[in-house]
């Protein structure tokens, strides 16, 4: 009985070894393949086998002559990722897998935020560049990305960052000059641009003057209103004029039009007139009286 057991064990061991040997054949696949580049994989033996290719975006089943190399065209390996290749024929299976990596950067997906910013604000503009090759594979190798923010008539702001896992990002101050700034990310010949509208920041100071109108009203008008970098504050920005006299307080909201704001305050013999836009307060005028 012991002999039977020993024989049985030996038989099992032989089966396991034979089984593992049968599946041990591996194809001599390349270590690294660039997307869109053809591949040649040698085979051994003779006769015909079935070739299976399972890739990230390409799958094929076809006949393969053993002894002849497996030829994969560039179009077969366009997508980055892992490819499994299996040869099945003559009772044997041979298999292998290889990785296709992205080719050189050809296209940049560029996220720029925000689309409209006040001038001269630190760290207010952000840009994220995602690097792709011609086959829409993310280029994961560290790559230098140049970011450039420029508005006509002012010096450009340039920053170079190294991508990590296919993405590079930067944060920039907005420029001093208002206008449509070109925000560009580029790697070699690949470049993508976005427009960031830089607008004047808060008014730097507001100066107004007053004169008597035709019907006794007080006409107030500002000088051209600019931010601290000299950019004209956009038309439509609200400016508030206030007059305080013995009858109480009168307030008029006026929108900047062609760079200046003006309003008509009620007649008064003696009033304190002030002007403000947002958090910025302008000059005061003591009207009439002593």
């Amino acid at each position, binding site marked *: 009985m012991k002999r039977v057991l020993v024989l049985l064990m030996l038989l099992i061991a032989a089966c396991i070894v034979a089984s593992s040997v049968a599946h041990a054949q591996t194809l001599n696949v390349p270590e690294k393949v660039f997307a869109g580049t053809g591949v040649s994989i040698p085979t051994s033996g003779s006769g015909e086998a079935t070739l299976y290719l399972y890739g990230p975006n390409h799958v094929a089943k076809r006949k393969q002559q053993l002894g002849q190399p497996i030829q994969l065209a560039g179009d077969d390996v366009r997508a980055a990722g892992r490819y499994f290749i299996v040869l099945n024929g003559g009772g044997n299976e041979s298999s292998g897998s290889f990785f296709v990596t992205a080719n050189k950067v050809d296209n940049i997906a560029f996220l720029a935020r925000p689309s409209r910013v006040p001038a001269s604000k630190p760290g207010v503009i952000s840009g*994220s560049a995602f690097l792709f090759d011609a086959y829409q594979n993310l280029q994961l190798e560290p790559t230098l990305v140049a970011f450039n923010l420029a508005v006509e008539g002012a010096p450009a702001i340039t920053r170079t960052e190294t991508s990590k896992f296919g993405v590079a990002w930067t944060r920039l101050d907005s420029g001093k000059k208002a206008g449509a700034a070109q925000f560009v990310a580029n790697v070699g010949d690949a470049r993508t641009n976005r427009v960031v509208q830089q607008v004047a920041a808060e008014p730097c100071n507001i100066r107004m003057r007053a004169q008597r109108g035709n019907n006794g009203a007080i006409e107030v008008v500002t000088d051209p209103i600019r931010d601290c970098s000299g950019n004209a504050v956009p038309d439509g920005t609200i400016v508030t004029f206030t007059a305080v006299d013995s009858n109480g307080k009168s307030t008029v909201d006026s929108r900047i039009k062609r760079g200046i704001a003006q309003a008509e305050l009620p007649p008064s013999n003696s009033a304190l007139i002030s002007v403000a836009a947002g958090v910025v307060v302008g000059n005061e005028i003591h009207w009439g009286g002593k």
Partner: protein
Amino acid sequence: MRNPSLHSKRALIAVGIALALYFVLASLPPWVLAATASPSNKVQLNVANAQPRQVEDATVQAIQRDYGKAWQTLAQAMSENRADLLNASFTGIARDKLAQAIAEQKQAGLSRKYVDKGHHLEAVFYSVEGSAMEVRDTAQVEIQLLDGDKVVHSEDATMHYVALMTPTENAWKIRVFQAVQGF
């Protein structure tokens, strides 16, 4: 009194049963074993190295949920050759590439099965405005390549993926999905 002959017979029967069990289990499809042996779809996300923005707790939960769901979607779509399922979890380039693979699989009568055994994600990029997150995934996956019902290749492996995810109305979807050799 001990009966040596009876004892040996019992031993032989026990060995026979053990062998039968071994061969039955060995012949079972691996995804059956995996499905019974492991909890599916465990996703852990580490956000300690995310830049330039810190990841909010709610976003961590959402990414874990939606990345796990994406793998379920992927497994079902690849197994049943149904590209329409991809829309729930994939978008853009990732969806297009997977859909093409499924179309070609279907045409050739092939399919593939994924047994998802868990993922360790690390967020490496989270955009300032919160509109994109890139994660590295170290996944335990069993992959079976099939021709009809016949398994042509099977592998139980640690795989590495890079995924770029973007938020949609009610879920994060995978926009870029690439297997890589390592990190």
